[in-house]
């Protein structure tokens, strides 16, 4: 990976090249994470011989970068592939195609042991604070587990580190010996955050980290994540279906639909001047918690098509109010239509 001229967004080859102005992350230089052309197609097997009869096109040519101290929000509805993107970057799932660079190093094809030093730079927080913690382990041991694997510490040193982590995320030292069931949902998510922080990672992937929490608790965890970013220069890939939460926490946002990024820009632009019809539809569909604001609602019709058989051309054309003949045939490339604003639509 060459340090200079790292395009923030690498286009898939078959598409028309964008203008030569990369999106600048807040911090310049080598991005912490660079994903290009990432694809994951899950084979669908059927019959006695388990023959592959088709593929689920979960992720199909996704590219983005995340700079140091930056949060990239990844939004989309269920089945759009946002979770698969997160898990592929973690190498919990092997990608079908594309590359993943961490700090400029290509980690896409590294084996388990080779990947290990990079693995500690990269942590994940899961959605469900109930199923992502081992119910038979004490909270302190859950948080200390990554330290046990990656760092040679004495038991006392480890305990010291864990208790510092507990305090950092707003839990009490005394709670280290409790079991997960003794914590509330919000506290469990704090344990998940402490575990993710244990190895001082550069990038944390949050896969719907606040979606299972009550709104009053959600705010606590969002504020915690933002404080940690400020203090520790963390980068986040924040995956969520909640646009308001994503807007609050992100610097830039990528909108996914059926395995592809359809719009990618900074958050102010996305929310004030969305260009893709799907982004428009998403924004229009969010209920506004203020009865004084009356909006004319244009509800987009229809369901999300199956990723097993994504529609040809633009994948949104089946629901798009503006769709034309070519939208049904040609795949729109993700183009940079203005500085830092990328859209995959023929009409914009």
């Amino acid at each position: 990976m060459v340090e200079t001229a790292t395009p923030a967004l690498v286009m898939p080859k078959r598409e028309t090249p964008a203008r030569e102005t990369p999106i600048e992350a807040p911090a310049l230089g080598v991005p912490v994470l660079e994903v290009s052309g990432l694809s994951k197609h899950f084979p669908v097997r059927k019959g006695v011989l388990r023959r592959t009869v088709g593929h689920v096109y979960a992720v199909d040519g996704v590219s983005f970068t995340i700079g140091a101290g930056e949060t990239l929000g990844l939004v989309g509805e269920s089945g759009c592939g946002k979770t698969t993107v997160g898990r592929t970057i973690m190498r919990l799932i092997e990608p079908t195609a594309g590359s993943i660079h961490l700090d400029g190093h290509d980690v896409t094809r590294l084996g388990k042991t080779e990947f290990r030093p990079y693995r500690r730079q990269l942590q994940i927080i899961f959605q469900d604070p109930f199923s992502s913690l081992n119910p038979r382990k004490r909270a302190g041991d859950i948080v200390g587990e990554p330290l046990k694997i990656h760092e040679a510490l004495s038991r006392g040193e480890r305990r010291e580190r864990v208790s510092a982590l507990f305090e950092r995320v707003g839990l009490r030292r005394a709670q280290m010996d409790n079991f997960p069931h003794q914590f509330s949902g919000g506290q469990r998510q704090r344990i998940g955050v402490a575990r993710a922080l244990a190895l001082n990672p550069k990038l944390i992937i949050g896969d719907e980290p606040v979606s299972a929490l009550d709104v009053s608790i959600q705010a606590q965890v969002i504020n915690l994540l933002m404080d940690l970013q400020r203090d520790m220069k963390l980068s986040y890939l924040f995956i969520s279906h909640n646009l308001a939460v994503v807007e609050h926490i992100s610097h830039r946002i990528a909108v996914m639909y059926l395995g592809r990024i359809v719009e990618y820009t900074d958050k102010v632009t996305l929310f004030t001047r969305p260009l893709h019809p799907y982004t428009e539809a998403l924004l229009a569909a969010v209920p506004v918690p203020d009865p004084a604001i009356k909006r004319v609602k244009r509800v987009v019709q229809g369901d999300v098509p199956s990723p097993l058989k994504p529609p040809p051309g633009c994948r949104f054309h089946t629901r798009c109010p503006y769709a034309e003949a070519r939208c049904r045939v040609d795949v729109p490339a993700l183009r940079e239509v203005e500085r830092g604003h990328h859209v995959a639509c023929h009409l914009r």
Partner: protein
Amino acid sequence: MSIQAATRSDSAAPATATDHVLEVEDLQTYFYTRGGLVKAVDGVSFSLARGATLAIVGESGCGKSVTALSLMRLVADPPGRIIGGAVRLEGVDLLGLDEAAMRDIRGNQISMVFQEPMTSLNPVMTIGRQIGEALILHQRMSNKAALRRAIEMLQLVGIPEPEQRAKEYPHQLSGGMRQRAMIAMALACNPKVLIADEPTSALDVTIQAQILELIAKLQRELGTAVILITHDLGVVAETAERVIVMYAGRKVEEASVGELFARPLHPYTRGLMNSIPRLALMRQEAGQQRLQEIPGIVPALSNLPQACTFAPRCAFADDKCRGQFPPYQEKRPDHWAACWHSEGIAEKANG
């Protein structure tokens, strides 16, 4: 506002009030568990005007779903039991009916849509048959007529190819379709009251918008009164006319939707409103501020103190709050709240 009625729910309303299709008075549903007595719903009263939409908001464990199940008399006994109060549907107290009489009313005059359409539909029964079941049972329709009506209902809720879909099973439908089918089932007998318990929480936001629009449209056409149970203040603001806020099994605030959002009087309501991030297009001010947290957690419903249940999380709490639960009072015209300090809090927030 036509939905607000002369008789308020907390003064003992006469059973014959004509403008209210449903009146709930001092409902108490307790659960007798090994961990002790859980007062899931503790003295909740409200009334629902004909054709209106009432939202019940609150976080998990506040008792909103148990309230709904109590109205339907679907609380599992044991461990749960409705130990007091009245639920009057057009003057008839449902809590006094025997099970056979209740079965005639349930799904017929008062019906319910649940959060998770996959688990609340019967997986081994066709959609058409499931919708028709209520019609055969309650309206003594023939199988054939019931199926015909089921297909009409599917069409009404906007399912394409209704004849085909009626023959299919729940797993063949998408999440949004299943919720439409649930609504078709709930409305098949043209009930007077529809209870929707988080009807869109499991759905994607574009599908949520479709379903909410559908409920509003059917309500206009059929004149059904709706109780919408949700944790989403955005959904409340866009669909309800009147709002009840619940906390730890009790009603803490009630007002029209405009009044509640403009002047929340209970610190919990205020906290909820400040803790949700808002999209730029909904904000008055530029830039994003730090979210306001409500410290602490929702209290366990067993062993609730005599004091105000919100006091441990409230910035305004004093000894009075920690000593006694505040009375539920009309603080402004038709705006009710249970808080010792609501006037001071409202002044402070606006001034």
